[in-house]
């Protein structure tokens, strides 16, 4: 479905199983939940008692002509009111507090699970969908908790309480009022059915409208260039009209339901007057009971209307729950071992691929039987065409994926047997584009080591030749990099990302070199920082620049997922094989465009 972000289906299977599971997550909140329940019961009771006080005030005071009793009853009535206010206040607050705490914890729980899923999951998922899990889905739950939960609880309590109270006051009259209940239920159910359909349509149409709007605005230049303004407006009008129609459907449902309920309530009043009035005249019921009944009648109708309103929120909340549980049910494909092998204090950085075969779809292997031993401190350049398996090899090296066959080892230990903390501490990947998080430059530099001090950061910046640049920024380390680092140029972002890697100080570095064009000055700085980063470390570089390849200790040429040839760059060039052919193309293109292509 298009615009799934805005609209979509709201029906779920097995709502009770969902709710039971949701309740299990809230076990730690049992105590405050009980407190909330107690306040709510007390509040309902207080509300139900008030008409009874009024009744006796009328019967024993007003109609009996006993003024002292009238004033006494008023006093009691006021006390009951005070209690009602207090308990209602506590109940409203406590119920919501439980719900909000639950949601905050659920949000963190889902996010924790999500962020620990494997890279394969993220590659498959759309960012927008994952974001909406954490935002609009939790919002749907919040809405229910804020506006729905309390009404559901109090409404159910109230309907039950009022029924009991009415029978307590007068059995025959209670039956008369209850006779209206079937009619009320039928009307409510019919309304739900219509309203459900209408709201479903509204959700879909609002998505279409927002989508069309967004596209109309972001594509406005093309529209004007091709003078299609009128056609666009007509098409938008059509989408907009559908949304209007959906709303009108809902308006019709609402405009029929509420009058029907209201009319039933009037019929209830009429019945009480007719039946109760006759009983009062006959002397079989007191006048105060009649008044109490009139009050109870309003208490009786209100919650049923409320429930009917909340139903929609409940549906949305259940749908959201099932989506959130969907994330919690996704198991990470790359998992931490139960009993990891500890690494020695001093990690040498010997790295090897041993007969590694892997494909995102196991039927279609991307890298096949890769056997590669890398000495501590050696610099390897991986080259090859697009699709040769270079980035896949890099991802296997940092355990974003696990090989289907063979193993990847650090100092002879299979990566799958290492604790994540050890693995990430020693093997780090520097992705192509310098992705920065919003926040200060300092936070970004020490991202990998949040406890790094400013002195350490400056030392690394000096070493990378970046200290002057940071000093030239008005707020130095406190400079806000803004969203995605938009404060800086793409070259500067790359530089910051390289320094970030230096601060992390990994033993083995896996570098996916950037392909984008840089101005010559930044280019020089990047070269320097790169050199600083790679020297003295085991390095696996997916190379896109001729200069980087030339400086490698060893070049590995991948072709169709296999190692085609390997050796020192000069030797390979002399040998005149695959590398020599690639080199030729780069040389030619390099003169034109300053960058080397992935393609031959």
């Amino acid at each position, binding site marked *: 479905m*298009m615009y799934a972000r805005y609209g979509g289906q709201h029906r779920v299977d097995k709502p009770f199983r969902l709710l039971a599971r949701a309740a299990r997550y809230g076990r730690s909140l049992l105590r405050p939940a009980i407190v909330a329940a107690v306040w709510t019961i007390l509040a309902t009771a207080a509300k139900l008692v008030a008409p009874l006080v009024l009744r006796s005030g009328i019967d024993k*005071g*007003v*109609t009996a*002509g006993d*003024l002292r009793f*009238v004033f006494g009853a*008023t006093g009691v*009535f006021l006390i009951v*009111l005070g209690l009602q*206010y207090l308990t209602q*206040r506590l109940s409203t607050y406590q119920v919501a*507090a439980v719900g*909000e705490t639950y949601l905050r914890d659920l*949000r*963190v729980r889902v996010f924790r699970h999500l*962020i620990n899923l494997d*890279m394969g999951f993220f590659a498959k998922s759309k*960012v927008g969908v994952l*974001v909406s899990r954490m*935002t609009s889905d939790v919002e749907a739950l919040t809405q229910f908790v804020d506006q729905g939960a309390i009404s559901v609880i109090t409404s159910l309590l109230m309907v039950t309480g009022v029924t009991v109270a009415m029978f307590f006051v007068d059995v025959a009259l209670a039956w008369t009022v209850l006779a209206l209940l079937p009619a009320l239920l039928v009307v409510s159910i019919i309304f739900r059915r219509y309203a459900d359909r209408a709201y479903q349509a509204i959700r879909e149409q609002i998505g279409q*409208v927002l989508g069309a709007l967004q*596209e109309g605005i*972001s*594509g*406005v*230049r093309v529209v004007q*260039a*091709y*003078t*299609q303004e009128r056609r666009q*407006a007509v098409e938008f*009008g059509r989408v*907009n009209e559908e949304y*209007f129609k959906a709303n*009108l459907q809902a*308006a019709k449902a*609402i405009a029929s339901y509420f*009058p029907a309920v209201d*009319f039933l309530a*009037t*019929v209830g*009043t*009429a019945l009480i*007057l007719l039946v109760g*009035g*006759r009983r009062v*005249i006959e002397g079989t019921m007191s006048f105060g009971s009649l008044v109490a009944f009139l009050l109870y009648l309003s208490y009786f109708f209100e919650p049923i209307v409320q429930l009917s309103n909340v139903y929609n929120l409940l549906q949305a909340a259940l749908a959201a729950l099932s989506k959130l549980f969907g994330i919690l049910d996704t198991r990470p494909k790359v998992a931490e071992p139960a009993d990891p092998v500890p690494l020695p204090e001093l990690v040498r950085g010997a790295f090897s691929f041993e007969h590694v075969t892997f494909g995102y779809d196991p039927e279609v292997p991307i890298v096949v039987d890769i056997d590669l031993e890398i000495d501590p401190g050696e610099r390897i350049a991986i080259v090859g065409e697009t699709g040769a398996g270079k980035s896949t090899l890099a991802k296997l090296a*940092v355990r974003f994926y696990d090989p289907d066959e063979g193993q990847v080892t650090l100092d002879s230990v299979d990566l799958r047997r290492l604790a994540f903390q050890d*693995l*990430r501490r020693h093997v780090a990947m*520097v992705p192509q584009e310098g*992705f920065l*998080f919003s926040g200060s430059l300092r936070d970004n530099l020490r991202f*990998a080591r949040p406890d790094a001090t400013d002195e350490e950061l400056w030392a690394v910046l000096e070493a990378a030749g970046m200290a002057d640049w940071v000093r030239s920024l008005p707020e130095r380390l406190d400079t806000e990099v803004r*969203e995605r680092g938009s404060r800086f140029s793409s070259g500067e972002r790359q530089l910051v990302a390289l320094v970030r890697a230096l601060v992390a100080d990994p033993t083995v570095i896996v570098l996916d070199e950037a392909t984008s*064009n840089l101005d010559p000055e930044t280019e020089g700085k990047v070269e320097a920082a790169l050199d600083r980063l790679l020297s003295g470390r085991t390095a696996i570089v997916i190379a896109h620049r001729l200069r980087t390849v030339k400086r490698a200790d060893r070049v590995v040429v991948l072709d169709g997922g296999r190692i085609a040839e390997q050796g020192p760059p000069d030797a390979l060039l002399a040998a005149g094989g695959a590398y020599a052919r690639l080199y030729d193309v780069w040389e030619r293109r*390099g003169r034109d*465009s300053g960058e080397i292509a992935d*393609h031959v």
Partner: protein
Amino acid sequence: MTGRPVSALTDPTVRAGLRLLGRTLLRYRKASALSIVSALLWMAMVATVPYLTKVVIDRAIEGSNADLLPPLVGIVIAAGALKALGIGGRRFFAFSLSYRAETEMRNRLFEHMQRLAFSFHDRTATGELMARASSDLSQVRLIFAMLPITIANVSLTIIVVVTLIVLDPILGVVASLSVPGLFLLANRYATKILGVSWEVQQRLADLSRVVEEVIAGVRVVKSYGQEEQVIGRLAKAADRIFKRTMEMLRLRSSHVPAFEMIPALATAAVLAIGGYRVVQGAMTLGDFVAFTQYLTVLVFPLRITGWFFAELPRSAAAAARVTELLKTAPEITSPKQPIPLPEGRGEVRFSHVSFSYPDGPGVLRDVNVVIPAGTSVALVGPTGSGKTTLAYLVPRFYDPDEGAVLLDGVDVRKVDIEELRAAVALVFEEPFLFSATIRENIAFGNPGASDEQIRLAARLAQAHDFIVELPDGYDTVVGERGYSLSGGQRQRIALARAILRDPRVLILDDATSSVDAVTEEQITEALRKVMEGRTTIIIAHRMSTLMLAERVLLLDEGRIVASGTHEELLATSDRYRQVLAETGVIDEVAP
């Protein structure tokens, strides 16, 4: 996002918004009148039913006249039926009126936005325009939905107060005290809670940014094993939402129960004072019951009214923002008496053209150049030299401050825009595809084009081959919500779209993003074919496209500083070589 809540109705922008509200009401006067009439019918019946109850009690029950019960109760039911009719009519007419108004205003906004010139869209964020046409309009709609009931509520309140005082002056005055109390409380609550809920919305937006960023940067997070760090960030954002929400809940839990308390306190007064008056014989039991009923009847209307007056300034402010946007005049419009474009093959002449963006420095200074019909030029220059601006003056995306742009000898400002833009087609740097089929995207400028013509254009643009490989061929849905194409593929579809217009002048804003060699070759090949014999202006970022043009114009600081073939300039102009190196068009410069 709607802006921060405002509370002053005296604010001048708010007044402008109120005028829009008023005008719209007049425009839909039939529905407005019907909804108000229904609301008043409802109001009259709401005021009547408790009185009828009193009559039933006094005449039938207290008078012990059981025969009077059925007819009197029949009247109660009849009044109830009228009341229901009033509710239904009020809701239906108010809702349909409000949605009709919202829909029309959204159409108007959309149409207007489509007509506003590039300069407007340059300085206005998409999100802002989205907010105008969605959340602001919903806020405006609220007023139309609530206005009839508010009118009825206010009259109901007045009538009830009058009735209470007529029934029993002393008790009436005492009980009526609950009216201002309830209204003030409701209004205060609504104002406060709108403020806090605005804060909650802001914190929610913060959280959504955190999630979006972390997921976009998940590779970095995992590379450095910093999952816990980002979970901490999220937890902090979630906690901020929690705190704000709890603040909102505290407000709710202290105010909402009070809404019930105020009429209940009045009921206590009725019990004490009313009981006293009944015992004294100054008041009937029916009056007593009517009093309690009238008090319950008022709770909901007063709450809604309090809410209405808290929302009103916000809605007026939203309406003001909408008005402001609608009032922004399109800067570029067709002349009243356009002259037809003469026959020609697309000679483009810039005559003493100067241009600057509002509040910005001059972008173009006295540019004089002729591009002979059927020839191609490449515009080269450092970032900000005015290349794109110069090209955009031809289809009148902007108008020059001084001088004129002539197409086949006619000032482009004198030609009808539709005719002009049909003669000048443009491929943007970021090719924009609509969420529609490839066929529709190519035929965007020629909705009536035949399949054959579309295929021909796609072939010319070297796009046909990859299109037929796609799952649904020409029917593949692309764009933001469809199949994702590579940058090179999108560019070729945009090129096909331009070719299909068969323009006199073709303008190519070359993409800067790097494409692989094969794609580059294909694009170059496509361009070579398309450019044959057609006036073409290329804004070049790449050597391969630069080489396609017969002539190069070097722009620097808004002036043309050199022109000639690529080879000539390479040999004679230091600045040219320098610019090429700086912009990364070429790597090293041969002396």
